[in-house]
């Protein structure tokens, strides 16, 4: 059962989105308000369990009186604000951001992005065949994760999940600067030489598939990964007394990955190495 904490009642504030009045509790972001009003704004670095870094800038909207566009994911709604989500100016920036990403990063496993590229008429090819790309090879240095930074958009979500927002392990950080910035452990060492505890919470929040479970990575490589053939069953982890919910993703009667519901009050989508990876005994049929 999901328990929703009631908390202190929050004042409602009024402002307008695309000319229509909106009422949201104080502290809501523009994105919250837009979603409540049924408006879809693309997001990449925003995540339901994290404080957004607002680094991708794909969710930008126009706010009356603001010199620049503002990120809907992290700008709090203010009374009287006039927000416009679909102006030519906002659409232009979203389009360019999508083009810049698609021309430098492998977005083949990023959900929804193909639709956005079409919607915003983005043409990543127009930067020419020599446009610089990340050009990274997948890092396979352990049995549990694969880090394919050719698909990384530097949304900072894995760093935040590993760091002070969830896991407090601080095994990874951004290293380098500018276009050369990459997610790395200290001294660009393999993950096995780092502080990583293999909780998999970074994979849980990765929006592009740059981080993936080894099981998924191998099946994708073999061409056997088929999400439509997978069932999801939510159960309770049997390892300790915390009672984390596990969602088992099963394909062909084999567990292929384990996640946890993001709205679960115990886990908020996070697990530990045992819940996340300790499922082999379940399918040991000998």
């Amino acid at each position, binding site marked *: 059962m999901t328990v929703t904490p009631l908390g202190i009642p929050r004042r409602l504030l009024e402002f307008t989105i695309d000319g229509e009045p909106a009422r949201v509790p104080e502290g809501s972001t523009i994105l919250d308000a837009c979603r409540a009003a049924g408006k879809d704004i693309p997001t990449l670095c925003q995540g339901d369990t994290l404080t957004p*870094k*607002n*680094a*991708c*800038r*794909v969710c*930008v909207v126009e706010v009356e009186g603001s010199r*620049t*566009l503002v*990120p809907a994911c*992290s700008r*709090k709604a203010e009374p009287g604000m006039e927000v416009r989500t679909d102006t030519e*100016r906002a659409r*232009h*920036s979203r*389009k*360019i*951001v999508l083009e*810049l*990403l698609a*021309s*430098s990063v492998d977005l083949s496993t990023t959900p929804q992005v193909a639709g956005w590229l079409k919607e915003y008429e983005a043409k990543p090819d*127009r*930067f*020419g065949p*020599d*446009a*610089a790309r990340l050009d990274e090879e997948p890092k396979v240095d352990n049995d549990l994760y694969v880090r394919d930074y050719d698909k990384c*958009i*530097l949304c*900072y979500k894995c760093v935040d999940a590993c*760091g002070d927002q969830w896991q*407090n*392990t*601080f*095994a*990874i*950080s*951004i*290293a*380098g*600067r*500018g*276009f*050369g*910035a990459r997610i*790395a*452990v*200290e*001294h660009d*060492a393999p993950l096995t*030489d*780092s*502080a990583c*505890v293999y909780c998999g919470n970074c994979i849980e929040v990765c929006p592009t598939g740059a981080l993936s479970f080894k099981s998924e990575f191998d099946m994708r490589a073999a061409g056997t990964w088929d999400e439509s053939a997978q069932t999801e069953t939510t159960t309770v982890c049997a390892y300790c007394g915390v009672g984390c919910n596990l969602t088992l993703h099963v394909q062909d009667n084999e567990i292929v990955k384990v996640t946890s519901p993001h709205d679960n009050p115990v886990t908020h989508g996070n697990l530990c190495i045992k819940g996340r990876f300790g499922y082999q005994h379940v399918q040991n049929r000998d």
Partner: protein
Amino acid sequence: MDLHFGDSKPTDDERAAVDALLGPPESSWEGADRSDADLRWARGGRAARDRRDLLLPGLHALNDRVGWISEGALDYLCRRLTVPPAEAYGVATFYAMFSVKPRPANVLHVCTDLACAAAGASELCAGIEAKLGLGSGVSVERSPCLGLCERAPAALAVKAGDPVRTAVSAPATVRDAVLAASAPDSAPEEPPAAMAVPQAGDPSLALLRRVGVVDPASLDDYRAHGGYTALRRAFELGPAGVIREVTDSGLVGRGGAAFPTGRKWQATASQPDHPHYLVCNADESEPGTFKDRVIMEGDPYALVEAMTIAAYAIGAHTGYIYLRGEYPRAIHRMQYAVDQARARGLLGDDVLGQGYAFDIEIRRGAGAYICGEETALFNSIEGYRGEPRSKPPFPVEKGLFGKPTVENNVETLVNVLPILTMGAPAYAAIGTGRSTGPKLFCVSGSVERPGTYELPFGATLGELLELAGVRDGLRAVLLGGAAGGFVRPDETHIPLTFEGTREAGTTLGSGVVMAFDDTVPLPRLLLRIAKFFRDESCGQCVPCRVGTVRQEEALHRIAERTGAAAADDIALLREVGRAMRDASICGLGQTAWNAVESAIDRLGAYE
């Protein structure tokens, strides 16, 4: 926090460098030898973690001593400060002056930025590399603007050791630069700061009055020339009175954003959260800017006094000067001035016997233009990567260490002295109605007398160029540095005020005025500007991280093209530039396309 350290051990030198900064380790938890007492004694929590802001000084200590930062050294520093090594590695790799790969102790930073490029920096680099040859034990690194534009081309030599030695060679010849790089101690002394002030000695100057007149080391000399009268006046007025004077004077920030200083101070002073902090932004990295260096080298006590006044007004007891790492002489002189002022009771627990406590800490930058952005600077001081924060919240509410903070540029702060000594009305009478007071301009490039000039706001570009002795064949003038814009030689009537430049569709920025003659191909300058932004982007947001790369690529493609052959790429540049301006997090990305745009639209580049 899961602190995990590898097996690499620091060398004795590295350990000594860290211990010299932090003191010897107290227990094996921090890297000392294990003793029985360690089993009954642990350290952790906030007490261990709240020294994170010493990470950057620690990295400097290692880099200064050894020339680079090894795995063992970084691990040891992290152990001492309870910082996760991955984060420290992220910080160390953020700054251009640090290296996490082995390199020689001698490093020569050769400026290849605009003024130096126009003065032959690429030939200089080639000459130096040819003369040094392979295995010379000197690493030659091409550097963005070193802030020595009045003596272009410039090179800065650093020799790691105890203590670290530096030498500046400017204007550099191959012979001088190689000598400075191999033996910084035997390089000739840098000329005095007043050499960069062609007006030096003119008694009518307000900001540069003492440069070249007083001994920058002597506090007595400073006091004999009117020093500390403004602080006395401030104590008479009280904090609210000082803020009122500054507000009435019409002073606005001189770093480029032109925000009213009085309003910033008032907003911080009235914050209930404490402590309040004062931060002086001396990370002068805009290509072509060297005015703050001139003040800090020529009249360092003025900045100490001005900071004391500002801190008194906003109720701060700690002030930081974030000084760019490429300015060794300014760092040395400011540190000496702060120490002298402290020894004489002008800083410390009881400033001037008024019962007010204030002290200044100097923090060195390490080669990152972005750290001149106010919130990136906070992150840098706090020991994080120098990435800008999103605003709101603004620094007046949540700034350094999350507390209300005033951050002002060196020049802005120094303006407070004449405001208090002459009074707000007299100060406001200088300049124009909306841009009051004197302004410093950094003139370089194709002029006879490059340097820092002080003129009242309202002087025209032509007057300034004439004063500096502009040479024939003027092709373009860059106002405001790489983030600014080009104007044509026939636009010398533009008044040098914030409103005047805005009306003319350009910007005053930090006061850079760089003149270029027709010997320098414009596309090459634009490529250098684009490379600058590509190198200096922090990489946080997509429009800037990838946009600056795409901008440079497009400029490369059209470097030799004009007219219809360049039209497609210019259209592409416009589209990317517009998104960078609209959607980047901070001013770096927002202005990364300004200069290129102005060159296309005003100068007709590529036509």
